[in-house]
């Protein structure tokens, strides 16, 4: 993200007020924490023509989360939330793997593509259903998506017949576990999805429309934005992202597990969005922030492993991060802790961090 060019005295101020400043700072701090424990943390080495290293594996293992979180960002930007993504991950993986496992030749490209198509279509149908309930029936998003969250894993287990379906397909393995141009292939998939999303939301008016729907759905409808259609599209997009993540997860393990695939990923994704500075109330969003938020979560997990803290405390750390990030974002908390001065400047601008920097940012893009 380009820092807006401003005159020298306020450059530091502009930097610290950039909406990505805090997420990036947290990410860098977390990465640095690793250095005393693993001195070659930033080292990247080449083995068998593949790049290896902690940084690469953070991005590799974080790929599904980034995808889901990017989709979730747009849903949250419209003032909604999508709890069903974990179940959609499981359904997509289950459908794709069960189709591939039925084939005589699991390496046939056409079959693999067809299987992926089936999985992704199912994901989009889930999104359509969510969007229909939210936009057409007017049901609160958290409740509407709860339905697929509860039933979806049952459906996934139904598809896999309660078993963990394992497959042995080389082309399919590429998406989640393969390498291309020395880098994990999933990084390219993520980069493509993020690039398309950014292009669609920042180069076209779509992003503005999404933000206006999230800001005030009724007002945006009155000025002529088809807010219902936007909402449905956003839920479908979110489910598509979750579907791709589902392909990635099942491809990486070469197995579909209806019960555990993508378990709790919706919570991690929401967390990534929040860390990235997008307000859960809807309105302004930041795809870049979300990507960094997802990387922060993945780095946190990796850090816990490398530092040698027992892995079971992972969840306690995560809880601490959720609390700290949310407290810092809460205007009321800042007012209480940092005193009355902070209260005056932050209280009126509700989503303080994005609101300060966003107007400049839109000009620069």
């Amino acid at each position, binding site marked *: 993200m380009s820092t807006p060019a401003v005159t020298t005295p306020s450059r530091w101020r502009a930097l610290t007020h950039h909406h990505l400043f805090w997420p990036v700072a947290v990410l860098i701090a977390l990465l640095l924490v690793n250095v005393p424990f693993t001195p070659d943390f930033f080292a990247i080495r080449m083995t068998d023509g593949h790049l290896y290293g902690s940084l690469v594996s953070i991005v590799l293992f974080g790929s599904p989360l980034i995808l889901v979180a990017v989709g979730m960002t747009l849903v949250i930007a419209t003032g909604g*939330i999508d709890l069903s993504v974990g179940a959609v991950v499981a359904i997509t993986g289950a459908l794709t793997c069960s189709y591939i496992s039925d084939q005589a030749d699991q390496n046939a490209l056409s079959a693999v593509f067809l299987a992926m198509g089936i999985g992704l279509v199912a994901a989009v149908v889930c999104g359509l259903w969510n969007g229909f*309930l939210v936009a057409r*029936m*007017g*049901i*609160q998003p*958290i*409740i*509407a998506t*709860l*339905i*697929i*969250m*509860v*039933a*979806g*894993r*049952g*459906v996934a*287990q*139904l598809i896999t017949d*309660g078993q963990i379906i394992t497959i042995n397909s080389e082309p399919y393995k590429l998406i989640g576990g393969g390498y291309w141009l020395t880098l994990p292939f999933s990084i390219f998939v993520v980069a493509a999805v993020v690039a398309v999303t950014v292009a669609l939301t920042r180069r076209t008016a779509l992003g503005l429309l999404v933000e206006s729907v999230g800001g005030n759905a009724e007002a945006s409808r009155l000025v002529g934005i088809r807010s219902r259609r936007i909402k449905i599209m956003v839920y479908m997009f979110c489910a598509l992202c979750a579907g791709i993540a589902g392909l990635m997860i099942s491809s990486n393990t070469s197995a579909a597990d*209806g019960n555990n695939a993508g378990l709790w990923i919706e*919570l991690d994704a*929401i*967390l990534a969005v*929040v860390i990235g500075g997008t307000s*859960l109330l809807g309105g302004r969003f930041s795809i870049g922030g979300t990507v960094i938020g997802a990387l922060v979560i993945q780095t946190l997990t990796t850090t816990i492993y490398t530092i040698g803290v*027992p892995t*079971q*405390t*992972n*969840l*306690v*750390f*995560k*809880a*601490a991060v*959720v*609390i700290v990030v*949310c*407290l810092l*974002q*809460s*205007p*009321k*908390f800042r007012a*209480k802790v940092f005193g009355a001065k902070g209260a005056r400047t932050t209280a009126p601008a509700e989503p303080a961090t994005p609101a300060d920097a966003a107007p400049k940012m839109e000009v620069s893009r």
Partner: protein
Amino acid sequence: MSATTKTRTAAEGRTASKPAQASAAARLLGDRRLPVLVTAGLFLAMYIGGLSRYQNYGFGEPQVFLNLFIDNSYLLVAAVGATFVIMSGGIDLSVGSLIGFTTMFTAWLVERQGLPLMLVIPLALGVGAFGGFLMGYVIHNFEIQPFIVTLAGLFLFRGLCLVISKESISISDSTVSSMAQTRVSLGLGELSIGAIVALVVLAAAFYILHYTRFGRRVYAIGGNEQSALLMGLPLGGTKIAVYTVSGFCSALAGLLFMLYIQSGDPLHAVGMELDAIAAVVIGGTLLTGGSGYVLGTLFGVLVLGLIKSIIQFEGTLSSWWTKIATGVLLCAFILIQRAMTARKQT
């Protein structure tokens, strides 16, 4: 149980047969008791369906019905706690992990530390209530969405489970096993201690929500927080109290679960918050808050329990059908609620 159902369906019949034919359906749809009636009717229909299908397998025995209470005692207690929160317009995602944590905590204290059970029980309840209090405090004082705060609670308690021990701890304490095996005879069949505790909790919640000032406040805040504030209701105190109640109920549910399973496991009750929320919604409580009955929650739990026992009796159906059936029911009841609120607005 079936007596109340009958009177309620009779009341439904009266409302429907009132003179103004055109608005009769509208009035029925606007009746706040409708979801509870539908749930009760559904329960009855499912039970009769089960009777006609599995009569020869002993489905009609009273003990099968009483087993619904025994096997779902912990869910009932957790769902009653969730009812308070949802009634106030909030949500509590930490229920399942708090249950898991309580089983782990008590098992660890009783088995590894050798504390007497009678000391551990109040301790566990206190920890649960304090956890709920903390979450309520943060939700109210820092104005962070309940969803996020209780999500942090979910992570925290599940993490604490694993910190205590990665493996499950089985409980061989004699008090626990004797309590777990105690059965109270009711003439037709018998109930476990857990089921009785659950019914007492239900009765207490019924009294608190419908006959005390605190209950009124919960409804008022769920109905419209702004209005409640303008009326001078103690918003913060009530909100914090609601989450404390939920935390207490979750801990109690954890104790019942521990009694039922006789072990502590870090993965006990994963996702049970969804079951609890589903039971509350199927029981007709509006997820937006402010409307519903705690008796509806009982029917919600019974319907979920009945699905499980029907699947058991069917024998060929697999367990994941429970999830699918729960989801379908959830969907149906959400749509009913939506139709009702749409009517109210116009």
